[in-house]
């Protein structure tokens, strides 16, 4: 972004709200505020919508990641001798991605870069009955999008097998890997949960059980380990090993587990032409942010892309937020500001902030107490499973190697969702981790189980593994150590054409001095992010309703939200 295009002046110069960054939370807030008749300016330094939630062309993804991986450059010479009554606080970008490895094994992919729409925050799906779908339907935003069904969920093992998850009555009946007794126990458990949710008196789960760990409840129900693992990690989507309280940072309670099952259950069969529980947007997850931006624009929100923001304007006396200075040099004022997690505010060198600001600044640092998430994007020419193209795979803790403490999720999306060249498949992999090395190990474990990594790039790897540039990334020792098992018999594994591995910081949203939106979390869907977004909106507009129930003519356009098959 060195050659900055000439910026057109923005008119008016005062807004109720300025939103910087077009990630999903920001876009939803912009749309909600516009709907509440606020004047909103929505800026993004990038030339595309979506920020950390975007879907990018193949060639653009590495540059986007690396542009957010370096430490902030020292702020330019302060223009603190501003004649105004404002202090300037410089914006700098935070390093949000690290350990970026891009490997190309098929040189001509770059020529078709624009045929790819790669999700920065993958793997991600929408549950047919989750909050994002409700929000899309309620706001009519679904009219800007099309979805297709993610057809199945599998549980993977270290032999490369993918076991289908018996997530419904029909699936239990059909499943070939479950024994008769297991089928009976699983179905009885589902019935118990359904009965409990339906409020049937005789099948109520006791309050004591509801407050106990979900895994204990499953044990109490006498479910065999295999089924327990299906329920915990492939249906309730637990992140951490639930049976090892030493490493489990998020022990699921029965109550929450049941809620997850209820969501899953309500998702299956909600839309007639969606066979599974999940949906995926055509053209990638970035469409969601864009759709909410369109929704906001319809309600009068002003959009300016490619517009970096250089500094925050604060009142010299009170330290209160006043506005922002754009890269064009223009100052724009607003009462409220929402910031993308990319940005942090630094003090100009050698200047001391006004006293009131000093008190506020310590709070203005993004929290990242949730560790990191390792992500991987792989492109292949063949599907992991011959007869099915869009599906989710879950690797429960300890399923790949003993030290694996978190679930690893993989989503395969085919070209029929317009995310890649025809005939190709994009695999999104993610796992929570404490540090980059642990994260890499998790992602590699899955890749080595499922994919063939071409060896001819060995020399490249040696040269290029030092520099974190385009080249090979798969370390030989890792690939050998985990694929050394007697598993390489049977079908040919898909060959890796391209991969991008990176770690992402997990930052929470913040509603202090300035509201800041969260980074994509480690979940499969957007439920938690939408909750946070709602909280931020409430914080800045406590009086306003978050998307009030409107007299939209099409609040129940199931057909639109559901995929076209």
């Amino acid at each position, binding site marked *: 972004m060195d050659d900055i295009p000439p910026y057109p002046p923005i008119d008016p110069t005062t807004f109720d709200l300025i939103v910087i960054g077009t990630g999903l939370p920001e876009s939803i807030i912009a749309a909600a505020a516009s709907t509440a008749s606020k004047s909103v300016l929505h800026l993004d330094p990038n030339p595309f919508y979506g920020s950390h939630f975007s879907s990018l062309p193949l060639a653009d993804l590495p540059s986007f990641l690396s542009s957010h991986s370096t430490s902030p450059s020292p702020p330019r010479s302060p223009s603190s001798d501003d004649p105004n009554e404002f202090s300037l606080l410089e914006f700098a970008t935070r390093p949000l991605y690290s350990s970026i490895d891009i490997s190309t094994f098929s040189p001509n992919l770059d020529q078709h870069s624009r045929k790819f729409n790669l999700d920065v925050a993958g793997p991600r799906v929408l549950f047919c009955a989750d909050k994002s779908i409700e929000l899309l339907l309620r706001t009519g935003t679904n009219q800007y999008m099309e979805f297709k069904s993610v057809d199945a969920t599998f549980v993977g093992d270290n032999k490369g097998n993918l076991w289908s998850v018996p997530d419904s*009555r*029909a699936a*239990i009946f059909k499943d070939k890997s479950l024994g008769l007794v297991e089928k009976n126990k699983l*179905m*009885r458990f589902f019935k118990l949960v359904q009965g409990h949710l339906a409020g049937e008196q005789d099948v109520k789960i006791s309050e004591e059980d509801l407050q106990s760990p979900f895994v204990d409840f499953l044990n109490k129900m006498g479910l065999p380990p295999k089924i327990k693992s299906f329920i915990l990690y492939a249906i309730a989507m637990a992140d951490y090993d639930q049976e090892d309280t030493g490493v489990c940072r998020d022990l699921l309670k029965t109550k929450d587990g049941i809620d997850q099952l209820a969501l899953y259950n309500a998702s299956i069969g909600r839309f007639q032409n969606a066979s599974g529980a999940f949906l995926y947007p055509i053209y990638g997850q970035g469409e969601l942010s864009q759709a909410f931006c369109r929704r906001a624009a319809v309600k009068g929100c002003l959009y300016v892309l490619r517009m970096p923001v250089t500094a925050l304007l604060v009142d010299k006396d009170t330290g209160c937020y006043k506005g922002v200075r754009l890269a064009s040099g223009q100052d724009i004022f607003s009462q409220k500001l929402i910031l993308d997690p990319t940005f942090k505010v630094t003090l100009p060198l050698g200047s001391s902030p006004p006293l009131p600001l000093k008190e506020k600044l310590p709070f203005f640092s993004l929290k990242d107490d949730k560790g990191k998430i390792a992500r991987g994007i792989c492109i292949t020419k063949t599907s992991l499973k011959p007869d099915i193209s869009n599906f989710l795979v879950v690797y429960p803790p300890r399923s790949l190697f003993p030290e694996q403490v978190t679930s690893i999720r993989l989503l395969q999306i085919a070209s029929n969702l317009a995310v890649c060249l025809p005939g190709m498949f994009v695999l999104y992999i993610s796992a929570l981790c404490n540090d980059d090395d642990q994260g890499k190990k998790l992602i590699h474990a899955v890749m080595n189980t499922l994919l063939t990594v071409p060896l001819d790039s060995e020399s490249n790897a040696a040269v290029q593994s030092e520099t974190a540039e385009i080249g090979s990334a798969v370390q030989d020792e890792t690939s050998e150590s985990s694929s050394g098992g007697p598993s390489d018999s049977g079908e040919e594994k898909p060959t890796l054409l391209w991969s991008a591995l990176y770690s992402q910081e997990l930052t929470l949203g913040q509603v202090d001095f300035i509201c800041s939106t969260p980074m994509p979390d480690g979940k499969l869907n957007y439920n938690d992010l939408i909750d946070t977004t709602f909280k931020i909106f409430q914080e800045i507009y406590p009086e306003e309703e978050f998307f009030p129930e409107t007299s939209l003519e099409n609040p129940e356009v199931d057909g639109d939200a559901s995929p076209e098959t």
Partner: protein
Amino acid sequence: MHGRPRKAPKPEDEAASSAKAQKLRALQTQFFSFHHNKIYTKEAVELSAKLLEINPESYTAWNYRKLAVEHYLNLPDCNPDSIKSVLDDELRVVENALRQNFKSYGAWHHRKWVLSKGHSSIDNELRLLDKFQKADSRNFHAWNYRRFVAESMKRSEQDELKYTEDMIYANFSNYSAWHNRSVLLSALFDKKAEGFLLKEKVLPEEYEFIHQAIFTDPDDQSGWFYHLWLLDQTVTTDSPLLASSWPGHGSDVLLVGDRCYNGSAFSPFSALHSDSGSFPIVLYFNQPVRGVNSSTVTVECGFNKNEDLLWKPLSASNSQTARVWVAHLKVSSSDLHSTVEVSVGHTKGIISTRGFEYSHPSMLSFKVHVQPMERDSSQVSVAESISLREENFKVYGKQSEESIIDSFDQLIIKNGHETTASNWRFEALAKEIECFRELLSLVDCKIGKLTLARLLKAYDAMSYPFANKLVHSEEVLELYSDLMKLDRTHYQFYKDERSIVLLQKYKDSVSSAICGPICLRLNNLSLSRMGAFEKLLWVQMLDLSHNELQSIEGLEAMQLLSCLSLRNNKLRSLTALEPLRKLKLLRILDISYNQIGDHSIDTTRYVCSSPLSHSVGSELNRDETVTSDVALINNWEAFYIFKDFNLNQLDIVGNTIADEKFKSVLVKIMPKLKQLDGKLLD
């Protein structure tokens, strides 16, 4: 389509429906006038389409359209193109009607009719069906129609089987799909199609398939329904078999001319009193058959070929199909000892209700000894009151038990050929038993218990010729007792089933109940139903008193019965006694202390296997001169039941019906009766 609660109509709905009715009335009037005047113009035909679109149930309108089509097809100027357009029009009208009411019999029938005219592409029908069956996967009209279409298209059963499988995978709570599967498999078995030649190859796979449904959701009934069909396929041999006979193979029959029994010298002979010098031969098949006659069953007695022997079916209905067949063989009194040879099925013609030929020809031979009449003692026997008292059983109970069991076993026909071929049946049953024991260890499930009981019973029945004990009878009894407690609404059904098991077991265990080769006491057993008749053909004297019998269906098989006590049971009507009409040798009957006459409505008429098979009164007007006796007309049931009896002795006291007036009627009906309720008659 299913499980949607009905809502009370709102006022505006009622207004709408009355408006619809108004419109319909007008249309209908117009339509009828066209119909009656045989007007088949374009407008008239279109009007009927309109009517059908609103009300697909209008049969007359469908018929009118058929007439209109016929009318059109008979026009001189019609050509293939115009015929096609007329018929396509019909198909379109049907499709619209079906959209209105998916379950309209008239509409589906009309569609079949149109297709029978030819000219239309049947491929379209399959596409339409796919659409309809997706919308309502269980609709039996659509499934019915599908069978019709598949047949007309000559679509292979294998393809259709795959389709049912897909439908079942989509949702296994689908009676129609499971049923279609059973229909298709039956057809494939019959055809002996490639891969379906051997049931033992196909059935285990089907069991495996149905287990998935049953274990996944034992509360879903559709799977159990298919399992029952599979069980039937496993247990029932295709070709009918002879289960037992009287006299048994290798047995000795002693014919005595009067009621004085002095044949102790002939033990273990079966002694039979025969005044007429004839005795019955009873054949008991394992399933109802037809075609038993003197050419399919030959009886040779000495050098006599009894070609005119008349075989009669013994069944409650008057059909020519029955499990039990009887013929009366007359032995000439000059031959004191003769050997009778009965060969069954050496000539083809005995066919089961399912159309399978009796294919295991078998031969019975037994000896008949005739004891000359002792005329002087006949007088005594008439005067003497014979009753089923303890002493009498003791009198007859002198035989050693071993010999009884030997002769008893002779009743069982051993079908070696069939049993070697049916090892897979045993294996299948054993596997099922194991499987359902496992299910019951997981869940408490009524239908599971019932199925296990059925399986165990079937297993025991199949192993009977080899093992002398019914190894599972205790377990089965317990299962039924459990079910009687668990499921009060079907209490009587379980009790009936339990009674039959109890009977099997009772006879099976060598007990003092068998007091002689001719007597059997089954009193005080809480029996609610009789069964196991194939093993009781030899019984001449039967005590069923102090039980809970409501019906004695099947008792007609016991052709040798001369003395029967049904005292203290729960028989509720005279028609319940109908099986006794076929017992030509019955002389002494005790039906005292039952409930005959308690209930003004005879419910047995509604519980008989088929209302159409119920024959009471059907022969009455044919061969009886209409009597002018008012008493008889008012008691036509009694007349019908008792008129054919040759009873000497009847006890009927303790029934509501048995007042003095009724008794006088009985005496009139049965002039040969010597004793009524212990009182000698003149």
